[in-house]
């Protein structure tokens, strides 16, 4: 990629003030060098060596990052292998805005987390979570001594859920509150991650606005249910 184009893109995006012009430009030159070096090696005559190096690098990072997330050494090896294939297929998408290795690790990490999420909930259906779409907020305050303000807040929330959320939003929210990741909900709804994120985000905004209109702010809620 042309260096001037990269510089233009960077300044257009970040609109950095003049005092940081030189360091930012230097970074871009570094990134271009990195991009050229890695992409060149991964597509050049000694590509097998570069691929092995990249795979070893990803295994090191994934072994550490997945250890506390339910993925062992063998898992890290498998994901690194898949990630290398994905990375080689996507080399033309590396825009040089970060180090190549950071970009590669980003792809590998998403693959790893997605696979862990898939395994964790592979036998869970939306119906089993949402009982056909209901998101019911019952009075779960412990006993008759529960704070009246708490009861009122929950009652308002229940009403907002019933009256303002669509069935699809209720299903998605219920699934999310049961621990399903957005992409897992999307695959079950026959949708995609962006659309489900927006569906849930819009539901959250409706509930927040409704609560605020009823005089219940996020801070009030945090205090009540701390």
């Amino acid at each position, binding site marked *: 990629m042309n260096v001037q184009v990269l510089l233009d893109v960077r300044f257009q*995006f970040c609109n*950095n003030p003049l005092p940081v012009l030189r360091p930012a430009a230097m970074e871009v030159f570094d990134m271009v060098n990195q991009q050229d070096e890695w992409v060149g090696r991964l597509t050049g005559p000694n590509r097998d060596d570069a691929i092995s190096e990249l795979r070893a*690098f990803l295994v*090191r990072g994934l072994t550490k990052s997945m250890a506390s997330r339910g993925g062992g050494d063998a898992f890290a090896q498998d994901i690194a292998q898949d990630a290398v294939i994905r990375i080689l297929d996507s080399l033309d998408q590396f825009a040089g805005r970060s180090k190549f290795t950071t970009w590669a690790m980003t792809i590998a990490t998403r693959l790893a987390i997605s696979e862990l999420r898939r395994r964790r909930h592979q036998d869970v259906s939306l119906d089993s979570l949402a009982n056909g779409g209901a998101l019911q907020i019952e009075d779960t305050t412990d006993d008759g001594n529960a704070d009246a303000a708490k009861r009122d807040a929950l009652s308002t929330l229940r009403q907002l859920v019933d009256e303002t959320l669509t069935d699809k939003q209720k299903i998605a929210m219920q699934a999310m*509150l049961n621990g399903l990741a*957005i992409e897992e909900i999307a695959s079950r709804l026959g949708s995609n991650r962006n659309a489900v994120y927006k569906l849930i985000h819009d539901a959250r905004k409706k509930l927040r606005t409704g*609560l605020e209109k009823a005089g219940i702010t996020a801070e009030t*809620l945090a205090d009540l249910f701390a």
Partner: protein
Amino acid sequence: MSLSKNQIAKLLQLIGTTKEDSMDCECCFDRLAEFAEAELEGRSLCEAMMAVRTHIESCPCCADEFKALLDGLRAIGNTDDC
């Protein structure tokens, strides 16, 4: 099915942390490597990177992936000679 106490707490947290978010998960992913480097190096964030941060603060899934990415990058040092 009704919500447990923990789920209600989680719902309230989701409502409380809802912000205006101009990004979606894929846009966030496209800029995540750059954002991770800015975070690790303590750089000040430009407007595009602030949008990534807002999305991560609003999206539990992207937040999980970002935390895992930082763990991985810290583990390998991610120096230029890697």
